[in-house]
């Protein structure tokens, strides 16, 4: 049986949904950030899978997405450390003061 693009899309959507569930339900900000990485990876898989059909733009764009993910992780974790230092917690539902 040949593996078609649809197969990859199914895997990607599964990852996307798992990531969404993680973002929506977990309290730990680190896990939320990881779930965001999962979502971005699902997008990447989609892009690369479609690049097999339509050309290399998808791969190029997935590289941009990875760059973006790196920037997002760095800043997100920086905020996290600053927050933990002040509040001693990294639970998302306790981060509700908009200041610290």
């Amino acid at each position, binding site marked *: 049986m040949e593996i078609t693009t649809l197969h990859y899309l199914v895997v990607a959507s599964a*990852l996307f949904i798992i990531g*969404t569930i993680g973002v929506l339900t977990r309290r730990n900000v680190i896990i939320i950030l990881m779930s965001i990485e999962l979502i971005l990876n699902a997008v*990447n*898989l989609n892009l690369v899978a479609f690049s097999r*059909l339509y050309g*290399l733009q998808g*791969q190029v764009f997935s590289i941009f997405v990875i*760059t973006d993910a790196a920037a997002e992780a760095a800043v997100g974790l920086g905020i996290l450390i600053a927050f933990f230092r002040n509040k001693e917690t990294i639970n998302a539902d306790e981060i509700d003061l908009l200041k610290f």
Partner: protein
Amino acid sequence: MDPVATPYFFYGLSAVAVLSAVGVIMRRNPVHSAIALIFTLLSLAGLYLMLYAPFVAGVQIILYVGGIVVLFLFVIMLINIERMQREYQFNKQWLVGLLAAAALGALFVAVYVKGQSIFPQHAVRFPEQLNTQQVGKMLYVDYLLPFEIASLLLLVAIVGAVVMAKKRI
């Protein structure tokens, strides 16, 4: 040259990717989550290789696994996680979250089922040997402006991360 036993590799890698992704969001201990994330990312790198995108696979390994996850682990080690492990892991809106995710999933399924007819039937085969050159050419010729913007973004991210994480500026 055709890849070996493609379906089995595909199913194996996707199973690892999805199961570890479940592990990422289910584990109580963030370090275990991060390790599960490594497995997801590595199997995705494998899937990229199967999709004739070796450069993206290399970047995935070197940047994602070697960089971002190391950053995650680094931060987890700096933060006392013992307390967090004893707390409730899920917030109160888990039902809403699940419903939203289910709706999203249904939407995806619908789109794929409907949209499959418009995909080109035959995959474009790129010569794998020239993948890196072609991606590089595209990055530096067609997408030069986005590339420069991405580098600016990284610079901003560096400054932002330093400002955020530094104790006294």
